């Protein structure tokens, strides 16, 4: 009986970890799906946002809980700068869309390096963490434990996904973004201002990192190089779910969270990672568009 409760706790924990994984990967998926950009620097922007939360709290006394109102706009702005400075020139100089997509990887690898080491230069390599009165506390009911902050992540993740969904389906700009991602030429013909929409989509992709970083800062300790530990996992989730497919990211993110939790408990974390990567490889080989992906 205790075993069962143990298992249930693990699954619940996995759901919560997974929801954070999903939100962290969301920006990556959006950017690829809408613009064909492989943003390997996404994790670094997440860490950067976590640092912003940290400094807002330590230097200005802002409660970490509301600091997303700072991180999201900053990341949005950063996204716009990057789009103008990197994406547009790259678009102009690559011969085909395929080439553009492939080249975004090294370009953003460079961006990741710059961001990562700038953080080291500015804020030293010291380890940081956000500790609040809620850290580690949990709701308990019998043998079921639900850590409060992780629940916050779950709620936050669903909120942001819901918000994005509404934005993309109900607002005019959102629909234009979707139109662009489906067919760039047709979108132009229909009169959509492609440059403006691209700018906005890219910025949105980066500002999800702002929100993810905010959630992230409550759970994990971080240092400038922390992103390196996250990139393989995020990639895995995106590819397995389907490159550019948001539903896929959500489902697979949560699934991998549960796998990490359950397999990490019954076997080891190392094994859980291998499982995750092999799943990705199998998906790539036998269903390259991803489990939920449409059209190759």
């Amino acid at each position, binding site marked *: 009986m205790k075993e069962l409760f143990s298992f249930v706790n693990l699954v619940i924990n996995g759901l919560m970890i997974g929801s954070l994984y999903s939100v962290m990967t969301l920006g990556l998926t959006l950017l690829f799906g809408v613009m064909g950009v492989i943003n390997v620097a996404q994790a670094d922007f997440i860490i950067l946002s976590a640092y912003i939360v940290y400094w807002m709290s330590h230097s200005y006394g802002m409660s970490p809980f509301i600091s997303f109102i700072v991180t999201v706009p900053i990341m949005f702005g950063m996204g716009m700068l990057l789009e103008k400075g990197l994406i547009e020139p790259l678009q102009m100089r690559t011969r085909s869309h395929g080439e553009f997509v492939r080249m975004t990887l090294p370009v953003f690898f460079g961006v990741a390096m710059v961001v990562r080491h700038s953080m080291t230069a500015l804020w030293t390599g010291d380890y940081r*963490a956000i*500790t609040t009165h809620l850290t580690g506390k949990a709701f308990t009911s019998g043998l079921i434990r639900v850590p409060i902050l992780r629940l916050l992540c779950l709620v936050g993740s669903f909120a942001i996904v819901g918000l994005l969904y509404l934005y993309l389906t109900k607002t005019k700009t959102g629909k234009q973004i979707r139109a662009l991602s489906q067919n760039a030429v047709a979108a132009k013909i229909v009169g959509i201002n492609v440059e403006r929409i691209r700018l906005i989509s890219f910025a949105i992709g980066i500002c999800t990192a702002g929100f993810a970083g905010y959630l992230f800062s409550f759970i994990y300790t971080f240092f400038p190089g922390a992103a390196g530990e*996250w990139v393989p996992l995020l990639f895995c989730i995106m590819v397995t779910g389907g490159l550019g497919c948001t539903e896929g990211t959500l489902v697979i993110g949560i699934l991998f969270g549960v796998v990490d939790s359950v397999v990490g408990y019954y076997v080891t974390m*190392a094994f*859980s990672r291998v499982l995750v990567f092999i799943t990705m490889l199998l998906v790539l080989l036998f269903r390259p568009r991803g489990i939920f992906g449409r059209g190759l």
Partner: protein
Amino acid sequence: MSESFSGKDMLTILLIVVTLISSAGTLFYVTSLSGKLMNVSDDLEGVSGNLQSVSESVLTLSETTVDIAEKVGAPSPELSALAERLEAFEEAMEEIRVEPKEYIVFGRSLAFTGKYTQPALMAHKGWELWIKLVNENGGIYVKEYGKKLKVKCIYYDDESDPTTAAELYRKLIEVDKVDLLVGPYASAVNYAVQSIAESYGYMLPITEGTSTELYERGMRYSFMCGPGGVATYYSYPFMEWVGNLPEEDRPSKVAVLAEDTAFPISVYEGVIAQSEEFGFEVVHKELYPKGTTDYVPMVSAAKDAGADLLMCGTYFPDAAGIVRAAKEVDFNPKAILCTVGPTLPEWGSELGADGDWIFSSSDWDPGAPTFGNAEMISKMREEYGIDPDYHTARDYACGQIMEAAIMAQGTLDNDELLDYILQTSFDTVIGKLSLGDVGGLTHIAWPPGYVIVQWQEGEVEVVIPSEVATADPAYPTPSWDERS
């Protein structure tokens, strides 16, 4: 349809390739040449300085001789002898080989970026502190050069990467031509550097590397430069203490978690061996990969296996992750010990009350009346505004050892210094260091000396052994519920 190149194309390409190769070659020569030029100009300055003083002495001498000759009137046998001597002296002066050395040059690479930055920087500060203090006193007297030489150190960033460090140490030896080396941070990085030092015949004092792997290789030139001992001993004083507790207080089931890299693996192996020695059952053990982010699953597993003692081979992020995970799953063993993490000052500042009651190992006891300890602590506070930790202390101790050895042997020769260090026992801020070959390991600190510390209400206290303790160990540690 092969690619058609005209002769012109070929020549142009050849030209470009040759130009590029030569410019690259020039680039390297320039970087090494600039180093050489600096040395040469330093040398020249020294030479001219020395020549000046020598010629001044000769001038005074010849003036005196002339005075004497005038006073005496006629050359006496003594004066002729003196005159001959002077001539010989002048000839000898022509051949004088002047040693224009001003500095003892150390070389090392440290993790200024990458995963190991934080502890590496603490070590760096300790080393720099020693250099500062030594130079304030005018330097170290080296008999071979007949004067006091100041100390300086060339640093490179090895990015916490072993292979980068290996290349950098090669450069330090070959291009920068340092006199002496100091080891980098982390066992894994020292690993790669050892063979470089060995093949060039340079001593490698390893201040930040305690994994047994480093000392199983039989490297003549590597030695442990910290009296703590190998990593397997980190947990020993603690395990010994809990092992000797009365039956009702003793834990019986141990869980061991460690990162899958050199140093934590040694700690892990040590805990397992000690569990057997003191009669504990290891109910859960796990080595987690370096990039692990979530510790809840493994901590849950430890909890559900019934462990009442949690021992961890960690650095900082994983130690913090494990402790937080323990709070989240309400895991309340009688004690938790984590290496490295809880010895850094940010353990308290970043984790707050959650960091309390955690044990850790340190080979440095801040309160101990060891040689230079108080001075180091006050100087550290003055220069950097923070207290030293054991990394700082180790590197400072290394400086003390170097100073003692150089003064005793009167030379900067690596072999002579090494022989002296291997046979001598030194007084340092971390206590007495003496090296020995034990149990298949060479040149380790023996006997080992670790103290166990514990965070108590935001302060680090030394708790074991009781002779040097500043507070009693709080054991069993309060449960998470009790703390709030």
